[in-house]
Every structure is written in C-alpha cells, then in structure tokens.
C-alpha cells in the first residue's frame, strides 16, 4: 500500500520548489522528495549562494581600493582562510532554507528526505539515509534532480589538489595559483573571484574566448579585468594531461607542449544530469545522447505524466529558467494555460565584472535581419559609474534595423544583471528604442545608460539617413 499524491516532485532545488508550490497553489496534494536535509539543492549548498557570498567579499575589496584611489589599501593576510571570507554564508543559507521551508509548509507541501527510484511509471520507492523504504504513487511526477560536475577521464579529481565545483570552496586557504579548466559560467565566475582575491588564475579552454554565447564586447571586458588582476586566459588550447606532481603543484600539459603549473586546479568542464538511481527505465523515461532527460516543449518526458525540469534537461541550466520550467511544467500537467513563453529570458553571470544579457546579440541580429541598430553607453559616461568608481562597465543596446524595436540588451559592470531587466521589459512591451530618450530616469543611476545608448543609436540612425540622402542626391 503506498501513499498517493497528485504530484510528486523529485529534487528540492529552485526548479523542484517552484513546481511543488505551483501545484499546491492549484489545490493539489504534493510531495517533495529531497536527498539533502534542507531544500535548495546544489544552488544553495555548493553553487549560487556560497560562491556569491565569497564574490561579495572579493568585490568589496576591489571597490574599497578603487573608491579610495588606493590611498587606503586593504591587504589580505598571508594564508587567509577562505571560510573567513564568507562568514555570512551559513547565515545566508540558513535564512534561505528557513524561508523556503516556511513557504513549503505554508502551502501544505509534504517533504520527505531520501533518494527516489521509479519502480513503475506511477510509483516511486524512497530510500532514506538509514535504509528505510517508503513507497508513494502519483498522478504526475516532476524530475528536478539537477546536475553534478563532469569529470573527464584525463582530469584526476581528488578533491584535495584537483577540485570540482562541489569541493572548491572546501579549500581552507586561498591558493597562490589556480588553473581553471573550462570557460563557461561556473569556470569564469570562480576564476574572477579567486583572481580578485589575489590568486594567480589561468583559465584554459578549447574555445577561443570565454563565455562564447555572450556578446564579445562584454567578454573582452571580462578578460581585460582578469588580466588586470594578474590572471590570463589561454583560449584555443587542448588539454593533454593533468597530474599532481606529488609535491606541491598540479601540472597541466597542453597540446602545444606548454605546461601550466599551479597550487590547485579547478575542473569546470561542464555538468552532467543527475539521473543515476532514478530508475528511469522502469518509468519509460528516455535520455538524450548527451545523457540529459529528453523532454518536449512542455518539459514532458516520453511518459506523458512525468515531467523533467532544470539542469537535468540541460541548457540554459540557470536558476531563473529552472524555476520558470518548474512552474510551467506543473501548469501544463494540470491544464492551466500560461500563454506562450516570450523569448526574453535574461542571463546573469556573476563574474567580476558582472555580466547581464537579454535577447539577441548584435551578431545574431545581423544574421537574422541583415543589419542591426546598436547603441553603446560606457559607464564612464554615466554619472553613477563615475561616482562608484565603476567606469569599466558598459551597456549595449540592440534594435531591429528597420523597425527600431529593442531586440537585445547586454551589460557588463556593476549591477549589470539587474540592469538588463529594463531592456527585457522593453522587449516584452515591443518598445521602440526612442522610449529611452523620452523617459525620465532617477539621477544618478545606471538606468541612465539606457538613454545614453539610445541617443547613440539615434545618432547612428541620423548618420545613416544623411548618408542615404547623399547617395540618393548623387544618383
């Protein structure tokens, strides 16, 4: 005899939580199964929250130095303990777990700690830490088990000298040097944090530039700041071998013969879906060739009453998109129409400098429309940027070449991830770029960058019009 639920959610990360809350709000009986004691998933325990707490410290150090024009300097004590740079981490995690726990309780969502395994398409067995088993059945299921770091065969991760994103923050002391394998979001975020704190960071990747899906003007700012912190980016390189020399260094050999040595190495060469032990075959759920759970546009697996959301289905694998997928999957399951999802999902990358993006890049616009209207606002021209000693940032606005409608907003620098939301609203509202010239913004704010970028765009439109007039006159 098993307990019966309208919805059983497997995994308590951002995607699973939102799925559970959405179903409960629709009046359904929900069970949330989570392997860990608290809710939040890797995002809370190994990912977003711990790394961002450390990042705040790193940023504050740099900002303090810049704001005082280096007259007052903050020196990092020798052999500083990493833990001591993120003392607020436990408080932040506890407060997040309290808040999420209260939300689940308020919505009468039952939670169960354990590992879930499908025994049939409608029944799960939940194994607890002590080995105790419980069986539950459900009308619908949402798989939101997340992902874990991928470890290629040639990288012998030992969590002591060669680490991954689950173990990197267990380091007691700040390493003097750190090699980072990979140039995706996690690689670049940690690379810039450790570089800002004083480690000599070397990023190695086969891609020619870091964060290849972002606008190159933004990633140029990232690499130039990395260089300023004493770090370097070795792009277009292939990894031959990684080994701990048995004494004090990790040696990374590249295909061109170069050997990079560092005290520690951080392997961030992608993530794999956590599907082991889920018993997907018993449920008729299929995987893609890359090992991700295969889903349709509604996040529905091959077994129609089983959905999968978040990292387990692959990119973009951001907390924000995962939450939206969780909500939408449940609405689809219970027949609630949420309308069409507009392609205006923002991306926030918490590197130093911070990067934010929404919509399409200039290159994509040129590909799609044959041309693009582009306006730029360097933060050195924005009063808030000057006041905050954050002149290195920029906003880049992209509009349709004919209609002038906003199709993309990309920012680098302080508050960049927040800043692009203004562009996102303009895109969702089908707005012309001139709205930013007419609108009044608080002064001094980074939002003013939108007016500066729009004026730049207007200038280019006027210039283009003049050229066209000249050509017409000549003809």
């Amino acid at each position: 005899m098993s307990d019966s639920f309208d919805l059983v959610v497997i995994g308590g990360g951002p995607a699973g939580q939102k799925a559970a809350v959405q179903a409960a709000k629709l009046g359904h009986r929900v069970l949330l199964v989570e392997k860990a004691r608290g809710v939040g998933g890797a995002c809370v325990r190994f990912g977003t929250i711990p790394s961002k707490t450390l990042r705040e410290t790193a940023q504050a150090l740099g900002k303090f130095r810049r704001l005082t024009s280096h007259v007052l300097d903050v020196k990092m004590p020798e052999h500083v303990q990493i833990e001591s740079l993120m003392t607020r981490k436990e408080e932040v995690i506890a407060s997040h777990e309290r808040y999420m726990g209260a939300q689940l309780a308020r919505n009468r969502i039952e939670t169960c700690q354990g590992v879930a395994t499908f025994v049939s398409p409608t029944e799960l067995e939940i194994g607890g830490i002590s080995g105790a088993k419980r069986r539950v059945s459900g009308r619908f299921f949402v798989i939101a088990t997340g992902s874990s770091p991928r470890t290629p065969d040639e990288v012998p991760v030992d969590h002591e000298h060669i680490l991954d994103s689950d173990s990197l923050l267990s380091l007691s002391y700040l390493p003097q040097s750190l090699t980072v394998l990979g140039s995706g979001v996690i690689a670049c975020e940690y690379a810039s944090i450790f570089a800002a704190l004083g480690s000599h960071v070397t990023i190695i990747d086969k891609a020619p530039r870091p964060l290849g899906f972002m606008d190159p003007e933004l990633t140029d700012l990232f690499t130039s700041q990395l260089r300023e912190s004493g770090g370097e980016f070795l792009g277009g390189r292939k990894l031959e071998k990684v080994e701990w020399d048995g004494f004090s260094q990790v040696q990374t050999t590249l295909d061109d013969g170069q050997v990079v040595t560092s005290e520690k190495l951080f392997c961030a060469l992608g993530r794999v879906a956590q599907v082991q032990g889920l018993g997907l075959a018993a449920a008729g759920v299929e995987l893609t060739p890359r090992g991700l759970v295969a889903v349709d546009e509604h996040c529905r697996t091959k077994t129609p009453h089983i959905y999968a959301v978040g990292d387990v289905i692959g990119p973009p694998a951001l907390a924000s998109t995962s939450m939206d997928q969780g909500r939408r999957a449940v609405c689809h399951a219970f027949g609630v129409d949420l309308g069409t999802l507009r392609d205006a999902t923002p991306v926030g990358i918490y590197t130093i400098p911070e990067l934010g993006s929404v919509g399409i890049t200039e290159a994509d616009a040129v590909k799609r429309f044959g041309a693009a209207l582009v306006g730029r606002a360097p933060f050195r021209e924005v009063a808030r940027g000057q006041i905050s000693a954050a002149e290195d940032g920029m906003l880049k606005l992209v509009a349709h070449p004919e209609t002038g409608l906003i199709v993309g907003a990309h920012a680098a620098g302080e508050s960049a991830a927040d800043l692009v939301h203004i562009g996102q609203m303009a895109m969702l509202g089908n707005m012309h770029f001139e709205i930013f010239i007419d609108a009044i913004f608080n002064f001094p704010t980074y939002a003013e960058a939108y007016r500066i970028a729009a004026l730049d765009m207007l200038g280019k439109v006027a210039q283009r019009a003049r050229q066209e007039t000249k050509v017409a006159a000549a003809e």
Partner: protein
Amino acid sequence: MQSQVELASSRQTTGAVSEGIRRELETRVASGKLELPLLPGVAMEVTSAAARDDVDAKTIAEMLKRDASLSAHVLRIVNSPVYSPRAQIVSLQQAVARVGAGKIREIALVIACKTGVFKAKGYEAELDEVFKHSVATALFAQEIARQTRNNVEDAFLCGLLHDVGRPVLLQALVTLLRETKEAASQEAVLAVVTDLHEIAGSALAKAWGLPETVATAVSKHHTTTPDKESVSVRIVSLADTFAHLSVESGALTSEALAGHPSLAALEIYPDVLAKIVQRATVVRETAGVLS
C-alpha cells in the same frame, strides 16, 4: 621520576580514583593548568613549512635532518609499500619530492605525536592502541571528507588529534596519584581519562596553536547530536567509529555503522557509505605503516 616499581604497584591496585584526585584533575583541566607537552621543534617547523608554497623539497629535507629519529622514521615510511616507491628512496630530499610536502607534513606530525605525546610510563600498551586508533581515525576522516566534498587536509589533522587528550590526562593523573600516594586500578584511571579527554585535548590543540576547527573536533567528537555541530566534528565522530570497527574489532560493515548519527548529519547515503567502507583495506595498510 616515578619508578617502574611504583607504577607497577599503582597499576595492580584495585579501586576507584578518589573524588579528591578527580576534582583536582578536573580543576587543572578547566583552569588550563594541565601540563601540556610541546610538539617537538623540528616537527613543528616541518608541519608549518610544508603548508607554505614557497618552500621547496630541499628546505624541508634540511629541516628534517636536524632530527635524526624523525628522519629515520620518514625514510622508513616512504620506503614502505603503501607509498609504492619505484626505487628505494635513500635521501630525505628525494623522500619529500617523491611523496609530497603534504604527506611529509602528515608523517612528521604522526611521528611527533607518537614520540613526543603518546607516552606515559606504565601505560605504553594502552597508548600504543590509542595512537594506532588515532592514525586510523585520521585516514578514515580523509576518506569521509573526500566523499562528502569537505576539506581533506583538515580532516586528517582533526582525526589524528581527536584523542590527544588521553595521553595528556594519563600523564597528569599518574603524576597526581604519585604525588598524593594514592592508588587506583588501571580501569578506573582509564575511565577518568575517557571522561575528561575531550576537554583536555581541546586545551592542547589551542596551546599548540592549531586551527579552531581542530580544537572543536577534539572537544566534541563524542557528541550524540552531530547535526548540531560543525562538519569537522561530524567527520571525526564518524571516523572514530570507522576506526574502532575496522582496526580494533575487525567488523567494519555498512550494517554495523547503520544508525550512526553522523551519517544523517553528513547526508551519507548507503551507496556513499559502501564506497568509504571499501577503502578500509587501504586505510588499515597505511595506518599500519604510519603507526
């Protein structure tokens, strides 16, 4: 100095440790008046140098050379099958370069503890067992830390020193009994040591300037509520049980560990537990060489 005859007589006597002696011992522990052994100078230098990045194999080898006994032990250990030397290691510099500064630090600390701390005349056999248990606990703590993505180096130190209060207390209690001309049975002496060893060990860890995490792990490793303690306490508390079951009773199985409160606190599910249990043979071999 206490004579062997006196010690032998104190060990053969039956009876409990008097309330007065126990209170005096408790007072000395609480007020920090316990006589604490010093970590031998060379071992201290080596352990702190090995943690730095700017120290090369040659420098560490030079430090080791100043302590002949320590050097001999290092060479014996690095030549053992556990470290699989490709060829015999004959020099200290070769030893440091071969097994790594981190391992040399561990070996130096283990030897220093054994020769400088885990000794009390008349109780050699008991302390030898405590020491072997401590080394096994350190090695299991490393394995647990690796599997749970916690700091591996800290875990070793916490495990190695978790029972360091026992020899310290044993020394103090034997001295007190001698001074007051009282006698107590071996069982009674060891029972008092067991009662107070966490707090005495913590005092020693602080006196040696070891990190706070070590002092906490030492002072709370017998907790019954590891979920309310730090990660290092959870790891050492579990590693302690692993070592008891594996080395002393030879009955290490996942079933024997079931229900240990640190398993839930560290979120170790049966699959991960099985992986750590599988490492027992390697741990036993390494512990045998180190101790």
